[in-house]
């Protein structure tokens, strides 16, 4: 199944904005897709729709029976359309909060806080982009692919999955003009040596100016190695347990390399997007 996130109004230059709001959105639909994932589409007010790819929201999840999610849950923006007043999230049921999200029906309200954090950047020098992602990470990268198309960049998307059927957003990435390569665990093509060889070949062909990835430690380490070897920059969207999502509580820190030092940065505020070279797997 192909998921088309409604991103009709990506700003040409994604001016990073720190402004956000707490708002009530109305559920338009909340559908299972691909067995493991669900797509939540909301009717949201304009004040929360000045989004950039890579930013996220903090959702106040409904309380499923017998469970008690208390804190908000962070979710990457999968789609946003200021014109249509829509906002989309692609999520995987992991625990109480996402089970709560799964109970939402059309017409229900959901309290959302966002957009939060710093999105991806796309300097002019990065014309040939390579995107490497797995699992729900694809949710984070989908709006980036759309932005690449709008800015006329060439895009290769490597979609890693357990089996080829689970490689979710293949058609979506293709519709954004990306060359899509599916790698999976069943034939071993998703393993690091195979992947590395694949990417080395593209680099040799001059097809990679920058990487984008998200989540997986294994992919990060691999891309850091390749990046260092070939001088290729890139960005990664990272995760951490959060409380406030705004930068106040310091719950969400991760260590980063800054010159010779290791410093803590807040995933919710300085991130969730960071330079691949500074990230620590």
């Amino acid at each position, binding site marked *: 199944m192909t998921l088309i996130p409604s991103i009709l109004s990506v700003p040409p230059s994604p001016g990073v904005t720190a402004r956000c*709001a707490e708002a009530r959105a109305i559920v338009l639909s909340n559908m299972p897709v691909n067995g493991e994932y669900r797509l939540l589409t909301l009717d949201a007010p304009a004040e929360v729709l000045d989004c950039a790819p890579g930013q996220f929201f903090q959702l106040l999840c409904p309380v499923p029976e017998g469970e008690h999610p*208390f*804190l908000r849950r962070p979710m990457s923006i999968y789609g946003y359309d200021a014109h249509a007043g829509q906002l989309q999230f692609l999520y995987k049921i992991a625990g109480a909060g996402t089970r709560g999200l799964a109970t939402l029906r059309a017409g229900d309200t959901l309290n959302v806080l966002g957009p939060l954090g710093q999105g991806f950047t796309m300097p002019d020098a990065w014309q040939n982009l390579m995107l490497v992602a797995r699992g729900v990470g694809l949710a984070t990268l989908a709006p980036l692919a759309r932005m690449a198309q709008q800015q006329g960049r060439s895009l290769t998307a490597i979609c890693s999955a357990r089996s080829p059927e689970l490689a979710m957003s293949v058609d979506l990435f293709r519709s954004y003009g990306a060359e899509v390569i599916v790698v999976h665990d069943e034939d071993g093509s998703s393993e690091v040596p195979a992947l590395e060889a694949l990417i080395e070949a593209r680099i040799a062909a001059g097809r990679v100016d920058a990487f984008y990835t998200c989540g997986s430690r294994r992919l990060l380490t691999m891309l850091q190695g390749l990046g260092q070897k070939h001088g290729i920059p890139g960005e990664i969207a990272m995760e951490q347990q959060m*409380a*406030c999502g705004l*930068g*106040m509580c310091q719950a969400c820190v*991760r260590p980063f390399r800054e010159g010779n030092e290791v410093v*803590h940065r807040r995933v919710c505020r300085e991130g969730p997007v960071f330079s691949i070279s500074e990230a620590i797997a």
Partner: protein
Amino acid sequence: MSPPDLSVKVGELTFANPIMPASGTFSEDLSDVFDLDVLGAHVLKTIMHGKRAGNPTPRVCDLQGGMLNAIGIPSKGIDDFRDRMLPYWSAYKAPLVVSISAHSMDEFARLAAEVSLPGVAAIEANISCPNIEADGNAFAMRPDTTAEVMRRLRAETDLPLWAKLTPNTGEPVAVAMAAEAEGADAIVTANTALGMSIDVRTRQPRLGNVMGGMSGPAVKPIALRMTYQCAHACRVPVIGCGGIATLDDVLEFLIAGAAAVQVGTATFRSPTVMARLIAELSDWMQEQGVTSLGEIIGSVQIPGGEAA
């Protein structure tokens, strides 16, 4: 009809309203969401003297009706406070309360002197943070250590000095009275309660630090009890803190005897909550014909007189 007067006095300070943030749950980042000058005061995250990294992650987890945190006190140190934070916060009208802490009396006293700068309205001594020393130990666990540290701090600063208590002590009233006797200008009840949570699937503690401080509605009855106990035992004002999320919660603490309240965890669920509480309190006073909060503070009705 003129709008009701929400102002409260906490010792020699007057705040435009009784709503202020709790230390560690507030920063300049919240200005993204509402105008921070509507608040009664600004209370900053505890600072320590040197640079510190804080605790391992995960630093938070959620609970039924609350959360645990073991942030620790990541601190950029006194220089960052003086050079960057103080100028930033001085631009606001709301009075600035600086929370400080230290591992030793000497360091604590030195820090009190160093933060006693123009633009600082009061110092909140965090003598209660359960994460600083192992197993929840902190100065505020005992009246004697409380007395000693407050005496040292009092000698170093002329600013109003608040003592923030811990619910982990067995003798909160004696601790509050010790702080008062050594010159505390207000008592804050309270910091977080030491708790723990285990992920039964991984069998690991949900916090990197194993144990952490519990906050949110789940601890409200404990914080309210301490507020009531201390307000009855002390002459200095008491500031309530713990689980406050609704107008009824604010009123409950004021009725119990709090001169003002701090809101922490509720801001994580709803970043606009403090602004909303101020507006709701104003509306409520108007509706009820309450012209000043003096009519509410300490107005608890104990059947048959004093409490058991």
